[in-house]
């Protein structure tokens, strides 16, 4: 590989992208508009239903005896893992938590929902015998603090990852098919430039442009929305770099031999739309059909989003997201090798 040739193609591609004002503006505006739209849409969200986590037997006598557990408009969610449940209280994803085994309850002091539920609990009665009730609560209070995770906080990593997906798939895949169709690739083939040099330059060009846009949009979103960050910025950057490479490699594979822009567009849409809806950009995958959950694991976007959310919202370390990092690496290596081997100049 000659660096001079790699650099020449890299610079030419960067110029082409940066000077195409409409495409550049769209790459910045698309994620910003979605984030702003959702921030407004959910800024006035009122909580009509309170969520209470229950650890222990939901059919226990305590549940049956205490009137709190018969209160309307409260959703009781059975849970197994106390540690995770407490984290959910910290992030306001649950309003209150009961451990029936130890008779403890947790509320977040900063949660309005938790405050209301605690008042309801303290005014509820327990049926101590067929004819007796008591206001004395059998539960011991445990205090928790922590700011709420808003829907927009949960959404932003997904939006950033989705923008990476569209920019990588269409910016590499579609552009290379156009190059092949209009003869740019044929002209380059007639020079000493190797396929490896050309493909490396395409990957490098798209990678830094995607990262530039992602970082800029993240900073902008953080300034306006004060995004939570419990993990490391460096780790998040690393996850986005790896995710971008995996998305670019999907684009390269689609463009390796295709000569029709219409066909490439169709294939790219066929790949990107299921990824957009099944990778957890808009909603959690926990509730969807198990078969679809397994299908989602094939998509690099799923692993990118889950790793980014884990860092931003749960403070995950690189060790914690090793499965996602390994999966993204394997997808990237496999697709890049297949893409490079099947690449055709004309």
């Amino acid at each position, binding site marked *: 590989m000659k660096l001079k040739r790699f650099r*020449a193609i890299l610079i*030419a*591609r960067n110029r*082409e992208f940066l000077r195409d004002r409409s495409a550049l503006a769209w790459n910045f505006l698309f994620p910003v508009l979605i984030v702003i739209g959702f921030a407004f849409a959910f800024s006035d969200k009122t909580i009509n239903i309170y969520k209470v986590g229950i650890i222990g037997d939901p059919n226990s006598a305590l549940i049956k005896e205490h009137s709190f557990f018969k209160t309307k408009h409260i959703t009781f969610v059975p849970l197994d893992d106390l540690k995770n449940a407490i984290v959910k209280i910290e992030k306001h994803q649950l309003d209150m938590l009961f451990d029936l085994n130890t008779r403890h309850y947790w509320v977040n002091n900063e949660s309005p929902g938790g405050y209301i539920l605690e008042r309801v609990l303290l005014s509820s009665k327990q049926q101590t015998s067929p004819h007796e009730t008591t206001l004395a609560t059998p539960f011991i209070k445990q205090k928790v603090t922590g700011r709420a995770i808003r829907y927009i906080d949960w959404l932003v990593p997904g939006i950033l990852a989705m923008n990476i997906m569209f920019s990588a798939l269409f910016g590499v895949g579609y552009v290379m098919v156009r190059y092949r169709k209009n*003869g*740019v690739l044929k002209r*380059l083939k*007639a020079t000493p430039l190797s396929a490896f040099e050309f493909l490396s330059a395409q990957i490098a060009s798209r990678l830094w442009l995607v990262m530039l846009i992602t970082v800029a949009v993240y900073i902008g979103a953080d300034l306006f929305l004060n995004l939570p960050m419990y993990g490391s910025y460096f780790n998040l950057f690393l996850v986005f770099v790896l995710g971008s490479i995996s998305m670019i490699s999907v684009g390269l594979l689609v463009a390796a031999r295709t000569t029709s822009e219409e066909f490439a567009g169709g294939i790219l849409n066929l790949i990107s739309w299921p990824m957009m809806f099944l990778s957890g950009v808009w909603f959690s995958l926990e509730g969807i059909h198990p078969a679809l959950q397994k299908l989602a694991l094939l998509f690099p976007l799923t692993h990118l989003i889950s790793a980014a959310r884990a860092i931003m919202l749960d403070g995950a370390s690189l060790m914690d997201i090793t499965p996602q990092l390994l999966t993204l690496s394997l997808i990237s290596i496999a697709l890049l090798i297949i893409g490079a081997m099947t690449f055709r100049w004309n």
Partner: protein
Amino acid sequence: MTCIIEAQNLVKHFNGVIAVNGVSFALQPGVCFGLLGPNGAGKTTTIEMLEGLITPTAGNVYFNGKKYDKKYSNNFKENAGIMFQSTALQEFVTVKETLNLFTDLYSKSVNIDALIEQCALSEFLNRETTKLSGGQRQRLLLAIALINDPTVIFLDEPTTGLDPQSRRNFWNLVRDIQAQKKTVILTTHYMEEAYELCDEIAIMDHGKIITRGTPEKLLAQHFNSVVLQLPAEDIDGDLSQLPFTPVRNAKHLEFECTDVNTALRILLQKNINLRNLRIRSHTLDDLFLKLTGHQLRA
């Protein structure tokens, strides 16, 4: 002297269709070789096999006496300049930036300022490549083909679509290249262009070379007559007794004859007005049509 480029029995099939069927020729350094033929004759396929862009189904290409293969392709690419029939350049990039890009793709290059001067690019150096006129674009593509100081240059229909002025301007550029003793391989539909530029031509049809030689030699070999041309409105008599068969088109009658004096005498005897008579030699157009026929090709 070693031939600079040699095609040995080149054959190319595309999905069962024979595009090129046993083409062979060898070129000496410094020659301008014209490959002519109707649409679909196999010119571009032949030239792309020579350029190493298409792998022949059978046969070999030799460059400076060495067989062209994957191992040798970089040496060939470093020493060949190619101007394709139709090619796009990267968008949103200026002429100067495009020249710099291609300069960096080769290990050697000519002096860029001299090349800009030679191909008359200075007036639109900072213009984007998508905003050039046809003639400007062809001059840029020629400059790109010359950027690595090649020893052999392939020009595939370089003046198609250009106005007569731009075409003649381009011919002068090719003559400059010839003056530098570079080998030029040219395909064209314009017989006048081939006659003006080529030292040697080959006419292809149905994937084969049907004749080859210098333009003058081929014309002498295939024609020993001249053409007399008269406007159709000047002729109203009976022409059936003439010793030569006239060919009539919408505007003219044409006669082929070997003895002009006799032909003129006969026409005068028939009281035909010769005021607008034109006498011309056969051209490569006539040769092309004689060898490849008048039928329209797809």
